[in-house]
C-alpha cells in the first residue's frame, strides 16, 4: 500500500466536489447537527428570496449574508469529512488495481481449468505458479513458494509461503515469484481480505462506534436544548414587543448548536483509521480502534516483542581446572558449523573475548555432528577429540553413558545461569564437562522506557513466554514488565485474558499462530500478524501488515489520541457558545433595551455586524480545525491527570477565549469594509 497520503490537488478538488454531493439531505440526515444547519440554511434562503421578491431590500442584504454563511457552514463540515475520506479512497484505488481480473487455474481432480477468479468459491483448490497472481485468500495445501506481498504490505522483500505451520496463509492480489503452490480458497469473492480492506479504507461501510454514538446523542441533546432556547425566545420577544426575524434566530441557533464537533466528528473517526493505516495496521472496525484507547492490559509475547528473537552467548563459565581460553576454544570448535543464531553468537563471543579467529573445519579434517532430536546435542569430532554441546540434561545423559558425572561446580554454574534468566549450554569433551556457555535473551533497547511510559498511562504489561517461571521472572524484571505468564499454552493464555476481563480490564494482544486464534478472538484488541495464519487473521480485529508485534503500543496511542481529539473538540465547541451569546443576545434587543449594551462586552460595531461576525466565526472555525481533526490532538504518554489539565487549558479555556478574539476581529474587518 502506498504510504504517501499527503494533500494533493486532485484530492482537494474531489473533496470540494464531494462537499456539494453530501448536501443531499438523505446523506446529511446521519449527522443531526449538520442536518439542522442545512434546514436553517434553507429556511433563511427562503426568507431572503421572499423578501427580495416583495422588495424589502433593506433586510435582503443582511439575511442573504446569513443564509450564505449557513450554507458555507454545512459545506465546510462536508468538506472535512470528504477530505478525510479522500485519503482512504486514494489508497483504495491503488488496492483495487491489484484486484483486476485474474485468471485462476482451478484444479478439479487431476485436470485443471482456467476460470475467472470471480467465479471461485470457498473450498476450491487452485494452482498458482511463478508469475501468477494469487486469485483469492486461501491456505497453501501443497508446495512452497516466494510471494511478493508488496501490494498489501508495501514491503518489497518477498516472503515464503508454505503448506502446514504458521506461514500457510496467502492473500488474494499478491504474486508468486518463484516455484508453485496449491491453494485452497477460504473466502468467496467480495469477502476477501482485499475487499474488506478496500471497504474499510474507503469508509464505505463505516459504522458509528459505541463512543461516537454516545457522543452523537449528547450533541443531539444539546441541539434540542438550544433549539428550545431559541424557539422560545420568539414568544418572549413577542411578549416584550420586539419580535425577532427568523434569519436572526436561525443565526443564533446555528452559533449555539455544537457545529464544530458535529461537523468534524466523522472526519476525526476516519482520520483515526487512516493514521493506523499509515502505520500499516488494518483495523477491522472503528470499534477496535476505540477499544485500543481503553486497553488496560497488554499481553506481549516475549520473543520478538520484548527480546530480540534469539538468545546470544554472553559469557563462558569454565569448569574447575579448565582455563577460559581452553573452554572458549572448545566451545568455538563445537559451534563453527552450527548455523543457528545461538551457534553463531558463540563464535562471535569467542572472537570478541579471546580473539579466537574462525577456523575452517574441513581443512582441520573435522567432522560436524549436527543437532538431532534423538541426542539433542550438536558438536564436532576432530583429531580424536569429541566435543559436544547441549542442554544440561542431554549432556548429563551423554556423560552418564560413559560412566561419568558432571562436577558439582558445573551444576552450580548451570543453576546460577538459569536463575538469572539465561539458558545454560554445557560443552563437554570426551567424558568431561568443560564448562557452561551463558546464553542470554537480549531485551530490546528502549523497551524498558516504553513500558514505564505505559505504566504512567495506566496500562499494565504482561509478558507471555513458554520459558520456565525462573527464566521468565528474570527477563520480566530486566524488561520492566508488570507481570508475566510462564510456560504459557493457548489454554493458559485464554484463561489469563478472561481473568483480566472479568476484573473489568480491556485486554490487547498480538498473535500469529493458529493456536493463538482463540485468545485473539477473546481479547478486546487482537492484532494478528500479516505473516500469520488465516485463522489468526480471522480471529483478531486488527492485522499488522508489517508483522511487528511492538506496534501494539502505537495502536494504543492512536486509540487514545482518537478519543482525546473527540473530547477536546467537544469541549472547545461548547465553550465557544459563551462568547456567541455575548455577541448575539445584546444585538437582538439593543434597539428596544439600549441598557443591554453593557452585555456587548466585545464592543461590536452594530447589531448586524455582531450577528454576522458570530456566524462567520462559527463557520470558519470548522475549516480552521480540519487539520487538527485529521492529525489528532497531540498525544503524550502521561498520566490522565496531566493530560486532562493540559487539554482543559487549551481546549476549555482556549475555547472560551478564542471566539471573543475571533468575533471581534471579524467584526473589525466587516465594519472596515462596510459589509454589514
Amino acid at each position: 500500500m502506498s504510504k504517501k497520503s499527503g494533500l494533493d490537488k486532485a484530492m482537494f478538488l474531489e473533496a470540494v466536489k464531494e462537499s456539494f454531493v453530501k448536501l443531499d439531505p438523505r446523506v446529511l440526515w446521519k449527522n443531526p447537527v449538520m442536518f439542522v444547519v442545512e434546514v436553517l440554511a434553507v429556511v433563511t434562503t427562503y426568507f431572503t428570496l421572499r423578501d427580495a421578491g416583495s422588495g424589502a431590500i433593506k433586510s435582503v442584504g443582511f439575511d442573504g449574508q446569513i443564509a450564505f454563511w449557513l450554507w458555507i457552514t454545512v459545506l465546510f463540515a462536508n468538506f472535512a469529512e470528504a477530505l478525510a475520506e479522500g485519503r482512504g479512497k486514494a489508497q483504495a484505488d491503488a488496492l483495487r488495481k491489484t484486484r483486476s481480473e485474474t485468471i485462476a487455474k482451478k484444479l478439479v481432480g487431476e485436470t485443471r481449468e482456467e476460470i475467472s477468479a470471480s467465479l471461485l468459491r470457498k473450498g476450491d483448490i487452485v494452482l498458482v505458479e511463478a508469475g501468477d497472481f494469487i486469485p483469492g485468500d486461501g491456505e497453501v495445501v501443497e508446495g512452497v513458494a516466494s510471494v511478493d506481498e508488496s501490494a498489501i504490505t508495501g514491503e518489497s522483500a518477498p516472503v515464503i509461503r508454505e503448506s502446514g505451520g504458521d506461514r500457510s496463509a496467502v492473500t488474494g492480489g499478491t504474486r508468486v515469484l518463484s516455484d508453485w503452490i496449491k491453494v485452497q480458497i477460504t473466502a468467496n469473492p467480495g469477502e476477501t481480505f482485499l475487499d474488506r480492506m478496500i471497504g474499510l479504507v474507503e469508509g464505505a461501510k463505516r459504522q458509528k462506534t459505541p463512543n461516537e454514538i454516545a457522543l452523537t446523542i449528547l450533541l443531539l441533546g444539546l441541539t434540542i436544548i438550544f433549539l428550545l432556547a431559541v424557539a422560545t425566545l420568539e414568544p418572549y420577544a413577542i411578549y416584550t414587543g420586539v419580535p425577532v426575524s427568523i434569519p436572526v434566530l436561525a443565526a443564533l441557533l446555528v452559533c449555539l448548536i455544537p457545529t464544530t464537533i458535529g461537523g468534524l466528528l466523522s472526519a476525526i473517526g476516519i482520520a483515526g483509521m487512516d493514521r493506523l493505516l499509515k502505520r500499516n495496521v488494518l483495523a477491522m472496525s472503528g470499534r477496535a480502534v476505540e477499544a485500543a484507547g481503553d486497553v488496560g492490559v497488554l499481553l506481549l509475547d516475549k520473543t520478538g516483542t520484548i527480546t530480540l528473537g534469539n538468545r546470544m552467548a554472553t559469557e563462558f563459565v569454565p569448569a574447575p581446572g579448565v582455563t577460559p581460553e581452553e573452554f572458549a576454544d572448545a566451545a568455538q570448535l563445537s559451534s563453527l558449523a552450527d548455523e543457528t543464531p545461538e551457534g553463531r553468537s558463540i563464535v562471535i563471543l569467542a572472537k570478541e573475548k579471546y580473539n579466537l579467529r574462525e577456523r575452517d573445519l574441513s581443512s582441520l579434517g573435522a567432522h560436524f555432528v549436527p543437532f538431532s532430536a534423538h541426542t539433542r546435542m550438536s558438536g564436532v569430532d576432530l583429531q580424536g577429540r569429541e566435543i559436544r554441546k547441549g542442554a544440561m540434561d542431554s549432556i548429563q545423559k551423554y556423560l552418564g553413558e560413559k560412566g561419568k558425572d558432571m562436577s558439582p561446580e558445573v551444576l552450580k554454574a548451570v543453576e546460577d545461569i538459569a536463575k538469572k534468566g539465561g539458558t545454560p549450554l554445557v560443552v563437554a569433551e570426551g567424558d568431561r564437562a568443560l564448562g557452561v556457555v551463558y546464553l542470554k535473551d537480549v531485551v530490546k533497547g528502549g523497551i524498558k522506557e516504553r513500558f514505564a511510559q505505559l505504566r504512567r498511562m495506566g496500562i499494565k504489561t504482561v509478558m507471555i513466554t513458554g520459558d520456565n517461571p525462573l527464566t521468565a521472572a528474570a527477563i520480566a524484571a530486566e524488561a520492566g514488565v508488570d507481570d508475566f505468564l510462564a510456560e504459557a499454552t493457548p489454554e493458559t493464555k485464554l484463561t489469563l485474558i478472561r481473568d483480566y476481563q472479568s476484573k473489568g480490564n480491556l485486554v490487547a494482544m498480538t498473535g500469529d499462530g493458529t493456536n493463538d486464534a482463540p485468545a485473539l478472538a477473546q481479547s478486546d484488541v487482537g492484532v494478528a500478524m500479516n505473516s500469520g495464519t488465516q485463522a489468526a487473521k480471522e480471529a483478531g480485529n486488527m492485522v499488522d501488515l508489517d508483522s511487528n508485534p511492538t506496534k501494539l503500543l502505537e495502536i494504543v496511542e492512536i486509540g487514545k489520541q482518537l478519543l482525546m481529539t473527540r473530547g477536546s473538540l467537544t469541549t472547545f465547541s461548547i465553550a465557544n457558545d459563551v462568547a456567541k451569546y455575548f455577541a448575539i443576545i445584546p444585538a437582538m434587543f439593543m434597539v428596544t433595551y439600549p441598557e443591554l449594551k453593557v452585555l456587548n462586552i466585545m464592543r461590536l460595531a452594530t447589531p448586524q455586524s455582531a450577528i454576522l461576525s458570530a456566524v462567520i466565526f462559527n463557520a470558519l472555525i470548522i475549516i480552521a480545525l480540519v487539520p487538527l481533526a485529521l492529525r489528532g490532538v497531540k498525544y503524550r504518554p502521561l498520566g490522565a491527570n496531566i493530560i486532562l489539565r493540559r487539554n482543559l487549558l487549551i481546549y476549555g479555556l482556549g475555547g472560551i477565549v478564542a471566539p471573543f478574539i475571533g468575533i471581534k476581529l471579524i467584526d473589525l474587518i466587516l465594519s472596515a469594509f462596510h459589509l454589514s
Partner: protein
Amino acid sequence: MKINDLAQMGFYLVILVVLAIPLGRYMAKVLQGEKTFLDKVMGPLEKLIYRVCGINPEEDMNWRQYAGALIVFNILGIVTLFILEMLQGHLPFNPEKLGAMRWDLALNTAVSFVTNTNWQAYSPESTMSYFTQMAGFTVHNFASAATGIAVAVALIRGLTRRQAQAIGNFWVDLTRSTLRILLPLSLLGALLLSSQGVIQTLSPYLTVHTLQGPSQTLALGPVASQEAIKLFGTNGGGFFNANSAHPFENPTPFSNLLEMLFILLIPVGLTFTFGHMVKDVRQGRVIFGAALILFILMLALTYGSEIAGNPLIGKIGITGASAMEGKEVRFGVANSALFATVTTATSCGAVNAMHDSLTPLGGLAPMLQMMLGEVVFGGVGAGLYSLLTFVILTVFIVGLMVGRTPEYLGKKIEGFEMKMAVLAVLIPSACILLGSALASILPAGTSSLANPGPHGLSEMLYAFASGSANNGSAFAGLNANTYFWNLSLALVMFVGRFGVILPLLAIAGSMAKKKIAPVSAGTFQTTGGLFSGLLSGVVLIVGALTFFPALALGPIVEQLLMWAGKAF
C-alpha cells in the same frame, strides 16, 4: 454590619457541615440495612408494616419493577389526595367548616404535594382543613421525600453493583428512610421549633380584639408537626400563606436558623452518604464541593444584590438603598437572602421573605438555581440524583479528553446512559421554556401577571421553574389560581418529577449490569478539587446556555433598567 452578615452566613455553613457529616454516615447505614441505634424501636415497626402490606423485604427489584412500584405508589398518592381534598367538607377536624375546592386547584395541589413541590396556588388558612393538612399534606411531605431518597439510593446501587440486575426494593427503601431518617428528625425538629413558639393545636381559629379596636381572626393549627417535615423533606408547603415569614411558623431568629439548617441538613448529608455507599468518601466530598461552590456563588449574587438594593429607593432617602421590601424586620437582609438561597438551592420552597420583591438579580439567583435542575444540594434525594446526572455528563465530556471511553466509578458511560442523562436534563428544561413561552403569548397566561414588562416575564419564568424543579416557591405577584396556571403547572410538576426519575432509574439499571474497571493512572479522576470545579462549571454552563436568552429578557434587563431609573 456587613461583617456581621458574613459571620452569620459562615456560622450557618459551619454548623450545617458539622451536623451533616455524622448524619450522612448514619443515613448510609440505614440505607444499606446495617445496624443502627434505632433498631429496637423501628425494627419491629418495620416488620409489622411489611407484614400488613404484604411486602417481601428480601425481594430485589430490577429497575423496571422498581420504577413500576414507585409510579404506582405516587399515582395512588395523587388520586387519594385529590379525593381527600374534594371531600374535606365531610371529614373531621374541620373547625372552620372549609368545603371542597375547585377541581383544578385540587388536582394542582395533589400533584404538587406528591411530587415534593408544594406549590400552593391557594391560601391554606382559608382553604384547607386541619384534616387535609395532617392526613394529606403531612403524609405526603414524608412520602415524597422518602421517594426522593429511594431513587437516589437505587441509583447509587446501580453505580456500585457489579454485573447485577437488581437495584434494591422500593418499598423497603421507602419505609426505612421514612421510619429511620425523616420521622426521628421531624420529631426532634418539631420539639425544637415549638420551644421557640411555633404553635401546635387543633382548636378553632381565634377572634381577638386588637388594640386599635377592630377584631381580627387568628388562624391556628397543628403547625409544629408539619413545619419540621416541611423543612426536612424539602417540601416547603406552608401551613399558612405567609409560610416561614409567619410568626406562628417561624417566630424567632433562632427558629429561622433552625429552619435553614433543617432544609439543607439531609441534602448535604446525602452527599456524604454517597461517599460512604460507594466506599470512597472522596467521591462524596467532591459532589459536596461542587454544590458548595454553586451555593456560595448564588448566595453572593442574592446577598450582594439585596444589600446594594434599589437606587430608586435609596434616592428617596427614607432608608438606605438595601432592599427591605417584602422582608421581615426580625430577619433582615442577610437572613432573608440566605433563606432565599437555601430554599431554592434545595427544592424546599419555604420562604421567609417575598421573592417577588427581591431585586431583579437577587431574584435571578433563586430562579437560576431551580433552572439548573435543583442540583445545588437540591431536594431530599432528588438533589443527589440530579447532580449525579450532571456528573455523568461532565465525566463524558471532559473524560474523553484523557483518551479513554469515559468511566464513572469504574463503569463505562455509553450510548444508553447518555440518552437517559440527556433526557433527564432536557425534560425539565423543556418544561420551563415551553411552559413560560406559551404563557407569555396566551392571554390566559399574561392576564395573571401583577407587573408588566420584564418583571412579568420573570414571574412566569419563576412559576414554571419552580414547578418543573419541584421547588414550590413563587413570585407571589402571579395569580396562579386559574385553570391555565393550575393545570399547566400540575403537568409541569408531574413531568418535571417523573421525567427525571425514570431516566435515572434506567441509568441505575444499565449501570448495575456493567463490570467495574479497575482504577489506574490512565483513569479520569473524579475526586479532588479540579473535578468539583469542572462539575460546577458544567452545571453552570449548561444551565446558563439554556436559559440565558430568557434571563436576559427577564431579570437581567430589569436590573439594567432599574439602574437606569426605571421600575416595574
